[in-house]
């Protein structure tokens, strides 16, 4: 299958279920909300070594936030509700509660009985002076701070999201392949319900499971390293001198699939891109197999 002259590999991305939630951070200005959100989602590329996978989902204009102030929506993913709660409480406590004028809200329809407690755990910072307010069915915690108060919703609903959707871009050289990756990232970021947790959305160090070193859980994916072509079994055809991977986490499988589809379409228009593939583990680990050809079934010219 080809799309705009770019070979689409007949393969699949292998993805996994992870618990996810959405956090909306508001502040007096969009800049302060973004500052807080950027820090809250920092060091959140992969659960290989981070406590959660996290990134900014989108900006929220004032008319869409609960308090009418500018906001930023963030998504967080972790292996379990317990891990997710622990990670978010730490992140919000250290990077959002500390940031001027911020407030934190939930914004997700989650599975009944599967909420995590964020404000309910941060409230102790108020040292007895915290205030609980209930409006409708929502409970909020108000913690007195030096600039007034920090407000955080008590509970945040969670869903079973999908993590590890991916595409791998194979190009003629580094600048052109990176440009293709940037186009894909821009297209994917228009979609709600997904994040690209790696720096700028692009992974230069795609990994494989395991290592010759017992302490490491993952190591470089040598099959896609151009400088190792010929000395290890390689996935790189002649003429390909650079690869970039884009990893997608989403609240639903459909969202991840649509992100992959948009990314493939956008990247395939870039000059110098030879093929698009995806990473998997043979299909034995993750229950979600996102086949590239199936995603493009109605679009690609064979």
């Amino acid at each position: 299958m080809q799309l705009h002259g770019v070979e689409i590999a007949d393969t699949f991305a292998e993805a996994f279920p992870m618990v996810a939630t959405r956090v909306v951070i508001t502040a007096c200005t969009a800049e302060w909300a973004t500052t807080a959100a950027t820090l809250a989602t920092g060091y959140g590329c992969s659960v290989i070594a981070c406590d959660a996978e996290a990134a900014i989902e989108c900006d929220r204009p004032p008319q869409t936030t609960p308090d009418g102030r500018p906001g930023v929506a963030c998504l967080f993913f972790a292996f379990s509700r317990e891990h997710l709660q622990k990670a978010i409480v730490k992140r919000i406590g250290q990077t959002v509660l500390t940031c001027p004028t911020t407030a934190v809200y939930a914004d997700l329809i989650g599975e009944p009985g599967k909420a995590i407690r964020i404000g309910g755990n941060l409230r102790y910072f108020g040292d007895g002076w915290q205030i609980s307010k209930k409006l409708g069915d929502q409970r909020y915690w108000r913690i007195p701070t030096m600039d007034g108060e920090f407000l955080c919703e008590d509970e945040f609903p969670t869903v079973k999201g999908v993590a590890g959707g991916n595409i791998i871009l194979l190009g003629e050289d580094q600048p052109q392949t990176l440009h293709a990756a940037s186009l894909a990232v821009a297209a994917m970021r228009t979609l709600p319900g997904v994040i690209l947790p790696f720096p700028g959305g692009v992974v230069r160090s795609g990994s494989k499971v395991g290592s010759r070193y017992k302490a490491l859980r993952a190591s470089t994916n040598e099959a896609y390293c151009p400088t190792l072509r010929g000395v290890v079994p390689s996935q790189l055809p002649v003429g390909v001198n650079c690869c970039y991977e884009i990893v997608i986490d989403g609240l639903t499988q459909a969202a991840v699939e649509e992100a992959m589809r948009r990314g493939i379409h956008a990247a395939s228009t870039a000059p110098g891109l030879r093929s698009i593939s995806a990473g998997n583990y043979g299909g034995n680990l993750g229950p979600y197999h996102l086949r590239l050809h199936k995603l493009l079934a109605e679009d690609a010219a064979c």
Partner: protein
Amino acid sequence: MLTLQLRAALQAPLDCTGVVPELMQRLTIPELERYTVYYGNQAVQLADLFHLHGDCADGALHWEGSNALFHYVGAAMNSGTITVEGSVGWNAGLGMTGGVLKIHGTAGDYLGANMQGGAIEVASAGNNLGGALAGSRRGMTGGRIVVQGDVGDSVGELMRRGLIVINGQAGAFLGANLIAGTIAVAGQVGSHAGAGMKRGTLLLRKTPEQLDAGLIPTADIPLTFTQLLLRHISWEYPGNSVTCYRGDLLCGGRGELLIIQ
């Protein structure tokens, strides 16, 4: 919808206890007509006092011709809708746990007292709105009451959560002994607002002429919760800051009285 249209002016108080959608829904038309209510010291049938039109299958009940002699309208209701074309007397919505009670006229004292859930909308009301019956240690504990006009004294006394919105004026002892809950008043309030409050929030649009000494001003500051509350109750407010009072100091000082600037 079941409509209860008053046949003739009442000469004695009418106890409307039990005339609520969740009970009326289960009755056939003949059973509805024979339903017993207390009129003065007499047990009478509904059909003796009212023309009944329709049924309550959709959970909607409509009173026509009501006045201040109608007591306990909507008391203990837990679902459905009751609308009242006219006024009601005491204890309307007493202890209700759900549903919607809409009163197009004036309600007497103890509207929504000991309420636990649901919603009440009324044009104006008397004393002890959302408060506690004598001997109760808590007033309204949940739900929402919206008053388009004025209310009397002792609104929200002892409350333990829930929301009261008053778009007119309130009398004395607003939120007295408040344990928890939120009361917002657009108009002027009387004396001793927040007296004895332990926690909870009073949000005012106008500065009271007098506040008790146990309420002390702390700051003029933007509070995020104010923005949240104003949007929740659909009050326009172009400003940002509130004048924050804490009190009652005699009771721990964890309550707040916020005046929109």
